[in-house]
């Protein structure tokens, strides 16, 4: 039987991160993954990540995936693909199906990093071809270059539903509605706002009554639900769609741990059946560790840190690193993870309704109900100020762990401060030079450069634009408000695409000056 110091199951963000830390310390490591390619779901993530520099903020997910693979390669991690781990038995015996063969391995330590699987909801017609998971949509469009459909209805307003809706539009699909049975948008407000401003209507407190079609989806009916999630008669709405996309949460894939005899618990805060483990992933069985979504649903950035923690802890378990060195390493990783677990969306706040920001400002009600901040609400946030000349307007209204904007501005116009979740503020007496770096670096696409009065009755608004075709200078169209409705005429006066912007184009539109603080998207006509 082949023996390894460490066997890792799952070559996603946490598994690869664990492998890197262990291999760096001299361990003989193998990673098994059932997929054809490594990286887990990272290669389907085409948006810029949140966090700070140490979390690789503003880098797109698939780029982070490639960086991880390169790093794993450098330190000699062995990754075996198309290898499904089908059993985890006593004394850390791992049984792997590779092709038609079943092979037994022995690990002196094990890290389970199997991630999570999508949840589903059922409704009449849910098995029809055309009803797909949000992950399936990402796989088809971002890995295989095939559109999941033409007209899509998204169910789920968590970050997955919001991000995937945006991605569907980026690949040329039309998203006809974003629907959630919950009374409030579940994901980041900035993700919701960038979808809403393109004109996608949000239906909160609504869910699917039925999918229609004989051999494939041809339509869908939704209806409003009351506080006990019962349909309210007479509130039905119908949409012609060919695709219904489900983004209704994730559940840990923890079966191997249960099989191995680890103590488990049902913990809704962590997403379902999870192993009982300490903060560094030590399960109830000595030498078996966990990292990433399998021990509690979060996201890729924290999974990578948890992976590094598990890798270091496994190294110490087998004596490849001294306890003091491990402690020092863990305290650095603790800080990094702690930074990500702050703010309104932190795991500790899951399910809580938060009415005010850390600064004591009322949260936008429109944002939670309709996906956009109302024109009458936006002025109360500290990133939104008025000045003569071009200046940044930061429509960042919730405390989330993210700060690339303050590093992006070389002129010091933007400050978040030491607390990573603080809302950005415009620094007094700073001079914006209209470079656009803040607009391109905001992972939430929430920063605009506005010249409120050009002196001729017009204003200019520079906005982030990640769609094709890219409008040309001179193109005439309409300015859309935060709610996605047409508010005014608009003409493109500048289009900037620079390597430093990393595929986020900067579109500057000229609008009547009374719409300077209202127009936030451009639609060619």
């Amino acid at each position, binding site marked *: 039987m082949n023996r390894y110091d460490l066997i890792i199951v799952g070559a996603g963000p946490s598994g690869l991160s664990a492998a890197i830390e262990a291999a760096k310390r001299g361990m003989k490591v193998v990673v098994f993954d059932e997929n054809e390619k490594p990286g887990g779901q990272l290669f389907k993530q*085409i948006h810029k990540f949140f966090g700070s520099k140490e979390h690789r903020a503003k880098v797109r997910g698939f780029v982070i995936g490639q960086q991880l693979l390169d790093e794993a390669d450098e330190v000699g991690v062995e990754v075996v693909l198309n290898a499904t781990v089908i059993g985890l038995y006593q004394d850390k015996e791992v049984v792997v199906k590779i092709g038609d063969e079943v092979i037994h391995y022995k690990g002196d330590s094990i890290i389970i990093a199997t991630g999570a*699987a999508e949840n589903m909801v059922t409704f009449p017609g849910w098995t029809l*071809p*055309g009803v797909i998971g949000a992950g399936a949509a990402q796989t088809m469009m971002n890995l295989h*270059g095939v*559109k999941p459909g033409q007209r899509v209805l998204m169910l789920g307003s968590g970050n997955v539903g919001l991000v995937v809706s945006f991605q569907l539009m980026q690949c040329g699909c039309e998203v006809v509605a974003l629907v959630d049975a919950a009374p409030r948008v579940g994901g980041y407000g900035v993700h919701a706002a960038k979808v809403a401003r393109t004109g996608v209507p949000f239906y909160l407190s609504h869910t699917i009554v039925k999918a229609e079609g004989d*051999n494939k989806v041809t339509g869908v009916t939704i209806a409003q639900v009351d506080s006990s999630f019962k349909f309210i008669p007479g509130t039905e709405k119908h949409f012609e769609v060919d695709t219904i996309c489900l983004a209704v949460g994730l559940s840990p894939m923890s079966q191997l741990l249960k099989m191995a005899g680890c103590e488990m618990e049902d913990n809704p805060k962590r997403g379902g059946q999870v192993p009982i483990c300490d903060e560094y992933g030590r399960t109830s069985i000595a030498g078996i560790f966990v990292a990433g979504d399998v021990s509690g649903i979060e996201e890729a950035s924290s999974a990578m840190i948890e992976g590094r923690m598990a890798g270091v802890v496994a190294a110490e378990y087998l004596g490849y690193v001294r306890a003091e060195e491990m402690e020092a390493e863990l305290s650095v990783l603790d800080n990094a993870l702690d930074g990500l677990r702050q703010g309104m969306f932190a795991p500790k706040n899951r399910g809580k309704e938060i009415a005010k920001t850390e600064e004591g400002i009322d949260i936008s009600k429109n944002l939670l109900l309709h996906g956009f901040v109302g024109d009458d609400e936006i002025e109360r946030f500290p990133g939104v100020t008025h000045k003569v000349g071009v200046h940044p307007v930061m429509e960042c209204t919730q405390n989330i762990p993210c700060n690339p904007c303050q590093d992006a501005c070389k002129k010091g116009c933007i400050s978040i401060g030491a607390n990573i979740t603080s809302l950005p503020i415009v620094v007094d007496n700073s001079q914006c030079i209209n470079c656009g770096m803040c607009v391109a670096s905001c992972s939430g696409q929430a920063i605009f450069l506005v010249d409120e009065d050009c002196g001729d009755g017009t204003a200019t608004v520079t906005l982030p634009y990640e769609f094709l075709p890219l409008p040309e200078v001179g193109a005439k169209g309409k300015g859309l408000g935060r709610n996605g409705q047409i508010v005014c005429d608009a003409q493109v006066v500048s289009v900037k695409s620079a390597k430093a912007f990393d595929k986020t184009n900067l579109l500057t539109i000229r609008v009547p000056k009374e719409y300077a603080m209202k127009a936030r998207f451009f639609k060619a006509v």
Partner: protein
Amino acid sequence: MPVTRIKEHPILGVQEKGNRIRFTFDGKEVEGYEGEPIAAALKAAGLMVHRYTKKEHKPRGIFCAIGRCTDCVMVVDGIPNVRTCITPLKSGMDVRTQYGVSDKPFDKQ
């Protein structure tokens, strides 16, 4: 038929594909790219129904696209229950709608 292949993506650019090849779906010739999942090639050709269930004869197509749910299984080169979303396409493949676990429609079984 609507265009389902993404020609150019604003973030990913023009995605590299393998050779353009031919295979058959229920005996009819279809084009796809070598190495992409069979399901992707079918989807791009607008073919959505992969199989009909054994008991109730209900249609099924792509659902999870990562080899987990088994909704997309078909009869490929004579072998039933092939997960088309994770099986790479090869030139000349014989891909058939699966009825229950057979490639014969129910009235001929």
